[in-house]
């Protein structure tokens, strides 16, 4: 058979779909799933937040308009939990960012076995939150916890302290556990930012007589600002809605001293079965987080870089 005698029959091309149709067809399945599992429940929750709904009182669901929102906004318990969440957010975010920058600088230094250091640093972040929380609950145990043992053996304490049983220390213990876990996350992101900085800038600065502190303040920090703001956005949103680590370590106690707004919402919705109030609380928390995110995004734009 001679090569070249086969001729492909010309394809009968149907009229191509408009590009937008093709795009819509590809997006449709994902959009449908998102609509069903995100948009519909969110809309339903918004609707529920306008009614007085209690799960243990089926069939009686009067319309209360914005009553659930007003009840919460005038509730001392709600504001108390908001302030606790804000305190937790501010302290953990500042500590995690500061330590994260320091760790990133250290990991960025040329040294032998740098990969070992990076692996060790990332370990706490790799642990599931529940494991981390249980571990710290044992460490902080008043009777047989290692923290009391360590501090008394080095002479820093004369007596064991019930860290998780005092309203003055319980929140700090939870903060330490969160900082221990989340600092590596900040460090890794900031390290990525550090490695994007042109090293010639440092050499030029040194030639001009700049010291380490000046290089950090004048070169590194300004160039890291966009990544720091992104880390700030992520950590603020996560910290404000913190639930799991506190729930496992203290359950919100003692005397509600670690009851952040997410725990307050959980108790309202899933222990009090007050679903109308719970839905309203969910929206109030979401609005608060969106406001915080908006401030950060505005700051990002001011620095001249946006995530878009």
């Amino acid at each position: 058979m001679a090569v070249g005698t086969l001729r492909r029959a010309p394809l009968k091309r149907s009229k191509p779909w408009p590009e937008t149709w093709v795009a819509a067809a590809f997006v449709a399945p994902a959009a449908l799933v998102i609509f069903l599992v995100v948009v519909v429940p969110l809309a339903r929750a918004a609707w529920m937040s306008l009614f007085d709904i209690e799960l243990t009182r089926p069939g009686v669901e009067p319309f209360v308009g914005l009553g659930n929102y007003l009840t919460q906004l005038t509730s001392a318990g709600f504001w108390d939990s908001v302030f606790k969440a804000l305190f937790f957010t501010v302290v953990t975010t500042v500590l995690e960012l500061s330590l994260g920058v320091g760790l990133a600088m250290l990991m960025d230094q040329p040294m032998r076995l740098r990969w070992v250091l990076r692996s060790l640093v990332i370990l706490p972040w790799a642990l599931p939150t529940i494991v981390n929380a249980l571990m710290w609950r044992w460490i902080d145990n008043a009777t047989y916890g290692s923290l009391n043992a360590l501090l008394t053996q080095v002479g820093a304490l004369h007596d064991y302290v019930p860290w998780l049983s005092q309203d003055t220390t319980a929140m700090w213990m939870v903060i330490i556990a969160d900082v221990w876990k989340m600092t590596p996350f900040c460090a890794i992101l900031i390290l990525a930012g550090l490695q994007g900085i042109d090293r010639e800038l440092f050499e030029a600065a040194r030639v001009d007589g700049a010291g380490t502190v000046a290089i950090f303040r004048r070169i590194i920090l300004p160039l890291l600002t966009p990544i720091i703001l992104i880390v700030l956005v992520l950590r603020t949103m996560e910290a404000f809605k913190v639930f799991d680590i506190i729930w496992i370590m203290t359950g919100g106690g003692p005397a509600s001293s670690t009851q952040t707004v997410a725990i307050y919402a959980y108790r309202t919705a899933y222990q009090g079965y007050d679903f109308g109030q719970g839905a309203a609380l969910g929206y109030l928390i979401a609005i608060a987080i969106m406001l915080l995110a908006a401030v950060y995004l505005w700051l990002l734009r001011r620095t001249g870089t946006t995530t878009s």
Partner: protein
Amino acid sequence: MTRSVAATRGIAWRLLGTATAVLFVASACSSSSATPSPAFTQPAASQPAASQPAGASPAASAAASQAIDTTTPMTLNVLLMQQAAYSASDIQAMDDAFTKAYPNITINPELVSYDSLHDKIVTAQVGGSGKYDVVLMDTPWPAELVTANIVSDITSKVPADFTSGVFDSAWTAAKYNGKVYGVPWINDTKFFFYNTDMFAKAGIATAPKTWDEVEADAKLIKATGVKYPITASWKQAEAVICDWTQLAAAFGGSDFVDASGKALFNQGGGLAALTFMKKLIDEGLVDPASLSQTEDDVNSVMSAGQSAMALNWTYGLSVMNDPTKSKVAGKMKVAPSPGEGSVTTSGVNGGMSLAVTTTTKHPNEALAYALFLASESSQEMDVANALPMWKASFDNTNVTKGNPDLFAAAKIQFAGLVARPVVPYYTKLSNALQDAIQQTLLGKKTPQQALDDVAAQLPTFQQ
């Protein structure tokens, strides 16, 4: 009793919606549509009566087997609790015995922690699939679960030997408004456990009979070098309510809310109990770590030989005397919980009952299963961790010989157990009281102020 499909679906939608909104910020869980079932009073099938299962009492079997389907294969979904008493292996043994008698019935037990039990019942039965046929119900819950139409009225189906043979106090865990909604299964209260070595070292020969004596003994023991003679489970959880209730009853006030819904817990025994708890903390007699401790933590502290006395449930004694877990094994003894004044002893009702749900498609078989688990012979399986609720068991030396002190203490306490408030808004009241008690123990409020604050919230809870 049967809920409409539309209503159930509506509730399921609300659950899904709230889960998304509330845990939009935490973590979400959702639910599916519910399936209605025949009402409990409808007979399941007109099959011949089953043969009596091994271990079940004759009367129990007779009452429950009236319309038990012994041919159609079926599965009973059962929601129980993880615990030392009636452990997973104990329950498996009971289930095996039940299915041997009823080969067509498969038992699918699900064991969750106590803290998850109530939430699981409500969300699964009201907002979820309603899949459970039998659920384990704690003492304060019947009012709420009846109001929410989750559990069935079984008043007319309780066998006579159960009514007469089981301690009266055990029935308070299963009743609401005079009707029976559960088969008592666990009868428990908090006993007084003490370290005999520490008592002897302080020159104390007998266990204290009043809380004033507890205070005096604790001071003597503290003088011997024990930093905190008493440890307690006063975490911001149900545990602290149980201890406070037991003390309140000892101080003469076990009624927390009157018939009109007015608070009584902020006066009399409730107030005196909280004042006494605060006094023990201030005097350095109770370990301040108690404010973050549950009952398991109390066992650990006592087993480590760190404290001399504690209140705890029955299973605590076997844990503290277990040589593989405890440094003080063999030195721990039990006594009836102290009283005060004219009250000789008191005990919070820690009993739980097995309730047949309103969504079950097999109500008679579900009840037969509950009665089987609660039968006298099943109850006598694991008396080291859970005391039986049958009066006759306490006179049976074969049962009591393993721990005569525990049975002696239990016989006294079981005669007069007190319940936590059985009101439809119990969960909200309990959460508020937990916070109030801890506010007092941390010195942020006086006992009167803290309890008055909760009393002021009662009308909101009752709406």
